[in-house]
């Protein structure tokens, strides 16, 4: 019985009440607020969700997740500029990051690369993309009609339009609704994945990859699959960003962007789906507010937050807030804390003698 959440509680529950309530709020928001900023926050939330799914539930931390965000954005820009219509561009912006992630993921996971070294490789890939895109100034660097533009990026490409009708652009409030729908859609997809056998096996991999293999599961294959799915969602977010910002630049691939999304996820709550979303919205809002003044540097605040969260709130905002509500149930609180902390650390490996160490055991 798929969706037998009562039995497999570690995969989390689908809180339909909350989902419907929040969805309604989001859909009614344009009546009260201007949608420009909320659209951006929604895009960031989707990006954070993609990392949160992979990291919180499969234990895969990428130090360069921005690579897929940027790849989605650039793919959209280049394709739409060449085709004049956005539907194919949209699809390619989702599929290409997924494909690239599958290749890189396969290389890493089948090669038994562990924690830190995986961090290096994912980081390096995003750096290569950033450097490469930053150096593509001049007419020589173009794909079809689209000049890659180096540091300045690619401006003035066709933004998203209603499929089949290139003259009707999705901009302003409709774009906001599109972003909200994508966010809700990806959230539900994530919940569906987690309630399936595939998702539960991912949890097992996060807990003890070696043991999962000893149960006969081909762990690298599962990891590659979730890595690819996560990249697809990040690509979708990137594509939406491109349409919102109407320009794509190499900074989208940058280390700063990769680190920011990591901070959003762990501040919001690693091991939940709503946590990363909330983290992105709150910290994203703060970043935008701080950006409007020069007295306090954004780096300072977000740096302080990161240090404090790691030291004091290892579970992140959402699980802490929920923990206060359930103050009686001490056991679940300490369990979640240990899970969350150990999820990030990955110690206690059970090494394979010759190949690299595979991550197991310590992801409690």
């Amino acid at each position: 019985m798929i969706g037998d959440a009562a039995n497999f509680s570690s995969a989390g529950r689908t809180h339909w009440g909350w989902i419907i309530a929040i969805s309604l709020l989001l859909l009614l928001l344009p009546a009260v607020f201007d949608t420009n900023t909320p659209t951006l926050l929604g895009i960031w939330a989707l990006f954070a969700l993609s990392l949160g799914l992979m990291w919180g539930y499969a234990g895969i931390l990428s130090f360069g997740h921005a690579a897929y965000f940027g790849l989605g954005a650039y793919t959209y820009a280049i394709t739409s500029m060449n085709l004049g219509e956005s539907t194919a561009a949209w699809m390619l912006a989702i599929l290409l990051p997924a494909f690239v992630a599958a290749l890189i993921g396969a290389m890493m996971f089948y090669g038994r690369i562990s924690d830190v070294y995986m961090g290096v490789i994912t980081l390096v890939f995003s750096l290569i993309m950033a450097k490469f895109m930053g150096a593509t100034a001049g007419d020589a660097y173009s794909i079809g009609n689209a000049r890659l533009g180096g540091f300045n990026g690619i401006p003035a490409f066709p933004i998203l339009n209603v499929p089949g009708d290139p003259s009707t652009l999705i901009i302003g409030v409709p774009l906001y609704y599109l972003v909200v729908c994508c966010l809700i859609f990806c959230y539900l997809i994530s919940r569906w994945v987690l309630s399936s056998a595939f998702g539960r096996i991912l949890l097992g991999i996060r807990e003890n990859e070696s043991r999962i293999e000893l149960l006969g599961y081909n762990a690298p294959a599962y990891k590659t699959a979730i890595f690819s799915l996560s990249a697809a969602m990040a690509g979708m977010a990137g594509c939406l960003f491109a349409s919102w910002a109407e320009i794509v630049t190499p900074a989208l691939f940058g280390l700063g962007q990769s680190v920011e999304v990591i901070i959003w996820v762990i501040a919001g709550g690693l091991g939940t789906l709503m946590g990363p979303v909330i983290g992105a919205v709150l910290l994203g809002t703060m970043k935008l507010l701080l950006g409007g003044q020069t007295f306090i540097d954004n780096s300072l605040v977000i740096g302080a937050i990161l240090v404090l969260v790691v030291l004091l709130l290892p579970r992140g905002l959402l699980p802490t807030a929920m923990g206060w509500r359930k103050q009686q149930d001490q056991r679940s609180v300490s369990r979640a804390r240990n899970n969350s902390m150990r999820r990030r650390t990955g110690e206690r490996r059970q090494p394979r003698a010759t190949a690299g160490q595979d991550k197991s055991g310590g992801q409690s």
Partner: protein
Amino acid sequence: MDYAAVVLLEIIYMIAFLVLTSAGLAVVFGMMRVINLAHGEFVMIGGYTTIACAKAGINIYFAMLIVAPLVVGVLGLVVERLVVRQLYGRMIDTMLATWGLSLLMVGIVTFIFGNTAVSVPAPIPGYELGEFQMGGYNLFIIGIATLLILCMWLVMRFTRLGLVARGAMQSADVASALGYDPKRVYMWTFTVGAALSGLAGGVLAPLTGLLPSSGGAYIAKAFITVITGGAAVITGTLSSSIIFGTINQVVSFGSTPVIGEIAMLAFAVVLLRLMPQGITGRFFRNAP
């Protein structure tokens, strides 16, 4: 012939640059398995210290070789006691917390010094090699890096401090067995690592205009160099610096500097895929 000498010098310079900027990170990683992502900012602060001292009239060599390491060493001590110590054994958490610290430091330095570049002229003039104009200061950097490696090797090999350090690398229990509190060993190790980062920052300060964000340029390459090098501090850093420095410069000469950097990054991925424990995880296993 001159061209060959120039290329060779550039390669050696690149290697020296990598060694210098990675040494601090390598000491801390090799000895404590701690990845200090604030390393780049330690380098940056070393640079700011040197420039501030030079502008205040202090001899620049004194500033870069003595003052900068001292100042950043103290900073490292504070960081270790307040933050890193709480997170031993939690590698990813340490990476995240030190990254937070690096952002914090960038913010503070921006607050104090503002966002315009500061600089100080190189104290050693350029020279000519055939028809090429070379930077004389680069030779100084190569010299310092060589001296650094030599000193580190001598300390590790021939002093009691080095012995305790190598023991602690194997396990904390060894340090205890030798009569040293592992916590203090780690504290001093981190401090020394920070001091080395400060030294690098000081020595490199005259090269370009320094910004609060300059640290970011160092951390990525240093991180990649150290991790690919593997657990052995000197041998690992040296071997990966040699490989990456050579590739970076050779490819740069053949095309553009950007392609050179990309080649270096790509090669790091290949190396790690082949040697998941780093270079010294496979070769030179027991070297210091």
